[in-house]
Structure formats: C-alpha cells, structure tokens
C-alpha cells in the first residue's frame, strides 16, 4: 500500500510543477511536455532519474519525464555495444512500446469513433 501512496504523491507533485509552469509562466501544454521530456533526459544524464524510479515506481515512470529517461537509457545501452553509432540505434529502443501503441491505438480510435464537440 505504501508504494501506491508514494507513486500518488510523487506523480502528483510532478503534475503540480507542470501546472505552475502553465499558470505562472503561461506555457502551453506542448511547451510543458516538451520541457519535461528534456528535463527527464537531463536528469537521467546524471543518473538521477533511476533513483527517482526506484523510490517512486509508477510515480516516476508514468509522467512524461520518463519518456526522456527511456530515450537516453536505450541510447546508452546500445552505445555500450556499438559505440557512437549505437546512440542512433538505441534511442527509440525502450520507448518503442509507448510510441507504437500510441500510433496503433490512436489510429484505431480515430477510425472507429466520431469527433466530439
């Protein structure tokens, strides 16, 4: 039960940061999510994001910051094997599930449903 609570609090706090960026600095949602992805990659560059995931579980993997973290993680894993070229090969390796399912489900839903409002 504790892990649910920690996931709730950490995930919620990350969303609060996003809300403050939108309200105070008048950023659009696209700007907020883009900055969060870059922030996630940057934090992972210093090895910090893994610690956050270890602590918060889904509270750190569900927010979009984890997308940046996975991009860098995949790139670094391939770079270990193939050097510089590996960065290009591995960048979408871990995020493949997210991107491909977003394409698949987004397409299917758009075909099946009628636009609302």
């Amino acid at each position, binding site marked *: 039960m504790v892990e649910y609570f920690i996931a709730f609090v950490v995930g919620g706090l990350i969303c609060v940061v*996003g809300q403050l960026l939108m309200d105070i600095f008048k950023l659009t949602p696209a700007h907020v*999510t883009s900055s969060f992805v870059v922030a996630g990659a940057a934090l992972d560059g210093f090895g910090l994001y893994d610690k956050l995931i270890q602590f918060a579980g889904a509270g750190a*993997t569900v927010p979009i910051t*984890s997308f940046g973290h996975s991009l860098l993680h995949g790139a670094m894993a391939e770079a270990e094997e193939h050097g510089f070229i590996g960065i290009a090969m591995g960048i979408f390796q871990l995020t493949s599930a997210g991107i491909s399912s977003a394409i698949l489900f987004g397409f299917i839903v758009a075909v099946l449903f009628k636009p609302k409002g």
Partner: protein
Amino acid sequence: MGKNELSPEQQAYKEKIKPLQPTPPYFVNCLKAFLIGGLICAIGQGITNFYITFFNFTEKTAGNPTVATLILVASLLTGIGVYDKLGQFAGAGSIVPVTGFANAVTSAALEHKSEGLVLGVATNLFKLAGAVIVFGAVAAYIIGMIRYLFQMVL
C-alpha cells in the same frame, strides 16, 4: 529575439491590462493537478504490479507494458470524449502523465478525421505530440553523446 521585444506602447498596454486579467486560482489548480495526476500514477502502479505478478516482468521492465496499457485506456477515453472533460478539470494533472501524450495523439487524429484517413488521420497523428518526440530525441541524442564522450575520456 526580435519577435518577443515589445515597443514602449505595447509594454504600457500590457501593464495597463494586467490588473484586469483574471489571475488563475493557483492553489485550486495545483490541488486538482496533484489529485488527478497522482491518481493516474497510482493506477499505473497497480498496472505495474499486475504485470510483475502475473506476467513475470521485473520492476525495471514492467514500465513498458504499463505505459502501453495506460495509452490504450487514454485513447479509448479520448474517443468517447471523457478524457477531454477530465483535462478541463485537471489541467496539468491530465497532461503530464503519459496518458496526456495518448490524448494529444488521438484527439489530433480525431479532429482531422473529416479530411480522410491518409491526409487527415495519419498525417495529423503527431501534430501535437510530435514536439515531445522531437525534443526528447534531440535532447537524448546530445546528452547521450556528451555522456559517451565522458565515459571514453575517464
């Protein structure tokens, strides 16, 4: 930065209308974002535990199917129009989690459905969410290079 520089008149106008613009209710907005965003993450934790218990994923690998499941649910909720209502209530609480990414993809595709499957749905799929992928890939590429260089030097 020429585009963002304001002439003195524009600056004066901006100052003049400032007290007339509604200030967003910061605290209430943050509370809503916290509650909904936290709830989505707690649900994600439940899905993660489900994959760990029943499909032999480890804590490290369970993130992928969790994200895919949340994207499926969010796409469906966008299709029936529920997610956009949630978004109006929760603000960043529905945008920051990965479900917001799915919502951006699906809603952009739905919106342009009338223009056809190829030119409407397919070309607009990443209209909003593309920014996330572009900035993520560029940032990861640059940071990856820097880290790799450091590893080689040290």
